[in-house]
């Protein structure tokens, strides 16, 4: 009895195995290959090389922790000032938070308008495209296009001077924290609009009508019905905005006049000095932190249900 059972068991599995005939799943192979060669292997190599040694011209296979300990040098000495690494992360977190706040508020209300106040589907598409088109144009151009507005002789300063609101050109408008946040909001509010709009379009209109019939006012509907149902969209949008700001070095570089530090910038500079293992160690920490943030946020929703 028992041998027969085993025979049968093996036989069934053999058949399952042999059933791997050409199937439609094989069509995913080219796509998978790109992700193996340009996503998985590079990230694994980054992790490995973060433990390597290096000199001026080459990287040397090794297993050392110096690249990491260098990053946190002086960080546990609380009598001195905060170490450079913590300062940089703190400044990046502040940019993340402010950008997240503004993109969320603006993105939510733009999506709200599109989903609930625009009646015809054609207009919905047209207005949605109007918000999306800038995403398909150059980010650098969109950043430098703030210069004529915010510069020392820019339109905003002209306005402030001519109306007497300020008696000297305001320097904080450009190449400052302000202009960085402004550029982030300008570039990435779309990342909030799309998922929140998607969530809103899935809300059954009869739920809102039911709330209305039961005497809820607009604000109550917004707070008790629409926002809870939009939570998945809000979380997805937040993940996009926060991760993009966390790893940024271009916007902070250009809009900060190359004066304001960021983690991405540290990695970029280390790479240009060919300190590749040091850059890799920074990249690993950045990636780990980013994943931690995403993991915490996805605890709030089931991301798979949203696609």
């Amino acid at each position, binding site marked *: 009895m028992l041998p027969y059972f085993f025979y049968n068991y093996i036989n069934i599995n053999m058949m399952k195995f042999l059933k791997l005939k050409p199937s439609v799943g094989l069509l*995913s192979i080219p796509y998978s290959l*790109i992700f193996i060669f*340009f996503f998985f292997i*590079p990230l694994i*190599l980054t992790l490995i090389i973060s433990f390597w040694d290096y000199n001026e011209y080459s990287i040397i296979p090794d297993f050392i922790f110096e690249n990491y300990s260098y990053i946190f040098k002086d960080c546990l000495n609380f009598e001195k000032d905060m170490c450079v690494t913590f300062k940089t992360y703190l400044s990046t977190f502040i940019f993340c938070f402010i950008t997240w706040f503004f993109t969320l508020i603006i993105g939510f*209300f733009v999506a709200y308008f599109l989903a609930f106040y625009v009646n015809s589907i054609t207009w919905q598409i047209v207005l949605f495209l109007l918000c999306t088109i800038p995403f*398909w144009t150059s980010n650098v151009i969109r950043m430098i296009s703030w210069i004529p507005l915010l510069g020392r002789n820019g339109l905003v300063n002209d306005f402030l001077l001519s109306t007497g609101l300020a008696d000297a050109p305001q320097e904080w408008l450009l190449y400052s924290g302000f202009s960085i946040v402004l550029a982030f909001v300008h570039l990435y509010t779309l990342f909030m609009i799309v998922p929140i709009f998607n969530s809103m379009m899935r809300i059954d209109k009869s739920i*809102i009508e039911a709330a209305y019939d039961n005497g809820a006012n607009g604000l109550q509907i917004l707070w008790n019905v629409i926002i809870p149902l939009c939570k998945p969209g809000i979380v997805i949008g937040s993940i996009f905005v926060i991760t993009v700001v966390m790893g940024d070095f*271009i916007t902070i570089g250009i809009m900060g006049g190359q004066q304001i530090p960021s983690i991405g910038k540290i990695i970029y500079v280390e790479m240009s000095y060919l300190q590749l293992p040091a850059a890799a160690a920074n990249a690993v920490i950045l990636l780990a932190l980013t994943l931690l943030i995403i993991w915490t946020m996805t605890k709030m929703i089931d991301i798979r249900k949203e696609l």
Partner: protein
Amino acid sequence: MLNKKNKTYYICVFFFCLFVLFLYGPTFTIVLLSFQGPDGGLTFPLNGVSTYWFKELWRGGSVVDIGSAFKRSIILGIIVMVLTVLLSVSAGLAFRKKFWGSDTLFFATVASLIVPSIVLSLGVALQFRLLDDFTKWLGSTFDINYINEFFQTTLGMFTSGLGAQLTWTLPFGLLIMFAVFNRFDKSYEEAARDLGATPWKTFKEVVFPLIAPSIIGIALFGFTLSYDELARSSQVMGAGNTLPLELKGLTTTVTTPVIYALGTVTTFVSFSVIGISIACYIWLKRKKG
């Protein structure tokens, strides 16, 4: 239902208009400033009206070789576009059924969108550096003349650069395919199969015409995202820079409206591509309907 045409409605309309102004206003100002006269500066007021800065840009004066960077970006954009369409449509077809590794691949797709670009760029650069070292080692160990004499680097626009950009464009392509197949009516396909069509014929005659408008969308994402890509490309382009990389360098060195003229030109290219795509999309939809 939400009351139409009440006070909140007008506040929302006003807010939306402000947002659109915020999105497009700055770009409009640099377009305006790029048409200044020869004495123009980086800010208002406009000093005359001319196409002087475009001629300056065309002449290549004071600016690095913009023409060839432009050409490189267009070529790379087209290659990325074609590959994005081919790979994400075929992967999209595969994803209609569960297959071995489909969960991992889906995870990689989403992860690729949110992994910091600089980390990915660094990883790809490291990979190609090791590949270079390995190739050189092969050359010296086995005395391969060709490698010892001519080999310089595997890093380049159409190797590492292409791959790094695909990790950014492919996820958009696949997610569009998901959206398409989630709303796809399978009965057409089944009818074709019942009538004896082969899988290839079913795809060609039935599925493809139905998803063609969305493929235009994927192509649009593929081209424009590659054409403007900067962060992932920053470490992996090798010797020849793409237009956005040159542009980033110019932001710190150029102090004339020539940079606005360049901005106007690239924005014009992007808008043309978007316009053509939307026109194609509408045309295909009409043809089908």
